[in-house]
């Protein structure tokens, strides 16, 4: 029986924040190095974000969470969970959440753990955060999806593997800017993309990542949640899907019956690339920056391995009160300093010195 998930207590998002580093590399700059005369062929995105030399999942999570706290307007010590989803945690053993919780003044009465589920690690943390608040165990919980994704030089993923993400503070529905109407998660054993221990770059199944992986899981999660909540595509003001490129999210949006007006606000991949665990949820922050009370939003992530988390949100009046309290996603998207491939190789530690 596939039924939608609902919490015991009504819950929602009380604060949200984005972060994208300032550096960018154009896809043509990468193509010129590897593709020779075929460099002009279709590229998956226009450009992608690149982390600075002193940035990682921990530092970027701190800034996104600081933005979320400014909008949540709560004492950070009320937060009882700091859960960060990423495939690029700086430590193999020592949770990123420990540093983030300390830096935000959330410590010590909190849980802190790392989530890992490829590109849906962030929404996995969100599901758990809604659960701990919705059960009454915690007043507030912080869920973050953040990545500094790596693509093997010359590989298709090098054009899109980017850096950035978003943070969400979950809390009671009466304080929420977006109330959770329901969620649904769909997971199978589908090895479309993975990274083994001690490997720097992931492996992927090329076209296999499409139909059996991305499209099947998103389609299944999206159709189930809509059926279970008795909603149709036209009931949503905005929709956002995981965006590994531009083509995939546009294709699934159209297949499910959504229009460009519904999917365009949350589609950021052409400008910043695929921020992995941050990808679909950065799109959600871009939507929240512009949407209005009463708007309904569908968010469906995808993580290789594989699975999708689907969430249905309805916005409250509080969105207009808090969205201007800090930087918006568009501010980070527009802030851009372009680097050439040499500087990119240096920033991404692709140059071996020993």
């Amino acid at each position: 029986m596939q039924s939608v998930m609902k919490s015991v207590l009504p819950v929602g998002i009380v604060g949200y924040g984005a972060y994208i580093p300032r550096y960018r590399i154009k896809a043509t700059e990468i193509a010129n190095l590897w593709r020779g005369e075929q460099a002009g062929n279709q590229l998956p995105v226009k450009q992608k974000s690149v982390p600075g030399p002193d940035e990682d999942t921990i530092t970027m999570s701190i800034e996104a969470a600081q933005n979320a706290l400014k909008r949540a307007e709560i004492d950070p010590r009320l937060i009882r969970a700091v859960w960060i989803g990423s495939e690029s945690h700086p430590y193999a053993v020592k949770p990123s959440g420990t540093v983030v919780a300390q830096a935000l003044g959330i410590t010590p009465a909190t849980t802190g753990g790392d989530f890992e589920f490829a590109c849906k690690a962030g929404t996995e943390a969100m599901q758990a955060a809604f659960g701990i608040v919705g059960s009454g165990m915690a007043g507030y919980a912080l869920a973050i999806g953040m990545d500094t994704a790596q693509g093997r030089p010359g590989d298709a993923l090098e054009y899109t593997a980017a850096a950035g993400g978003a943070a969400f503070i979950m809390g009671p529905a009466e304080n929420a800017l977006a109330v959770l109407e329901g969620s649904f998660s769909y997971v199978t054993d589908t090895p479309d993309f993975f990274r083994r221990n001690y490997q720097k770059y992931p492996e992927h199944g090329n076209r296999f990542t499409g139909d059996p992986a991305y499209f099947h899981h998103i389609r299944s999660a999206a159709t189930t949640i809509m059926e279970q909540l008795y909603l149709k595509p036209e009931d949503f003001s905005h929709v956002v899907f995981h965006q590994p490129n531009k083509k995939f999210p546009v294709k699934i949006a159209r297949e499910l019956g959504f229009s460009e007006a519904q999917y365009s606000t949350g589609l950021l991949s052409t400008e910043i690339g695929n921020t992995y665990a941050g990808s679909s949820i950065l799109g959600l922050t871009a939507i929240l920056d512009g949407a209005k009370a009463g708007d309904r939003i569908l968010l469906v992530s995808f993580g290789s391995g594989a699975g999708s988390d689907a969430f249905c949100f309805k916005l409250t009046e509080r969105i207009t009160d808090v969205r201007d309290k800090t930087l918006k996603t568009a501010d980070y998207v527009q802030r851009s300093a372009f680097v050439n491939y040499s500087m990119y190789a240096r920033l991404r530690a692709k140059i071996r010195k020993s």
Partner: protein
Amino acid sequence: MDIPRYWRLKNQRYHLEGSVCQNCGHQSFPSRPLCPQCKSKDLKSVRFNGKGIVYSYTILYQTSERYEGYVPYVVALIDLEDGPRITAQLTDVDLNQVKIGMPVEMVIRKYFEEGETGPIVYGYKFRPVFSKQDLTEPPIK
């Protein structure tokens, strides 16, 4: 490895925690056990707000191995809005963008990794104030 020291300094590095003398009001960063001005031992911890302006700066080209990844980079003397003059690395800035009087704000960034196996050390750095976008030049005071 210097783990006890990193642990002890976390409030200084994450929260810009210094001290203020309860006798004469002198502010210190890092915090001190004894007021350098009036020698009072009655000091209280205070967290500065992380906003300031560049008093002066220098560009580093030769540095220790830990900081090689940032070369060339800027270290600035920063007059804090609500505190003393401190020294910090600037980040997210082009060398030709740095000016005396430039408004800056604190961010938490990586300092260094202690070799291949040691801890990763984080703390305050400063960047040009990112009020909207840094598409426009920050105002010069």
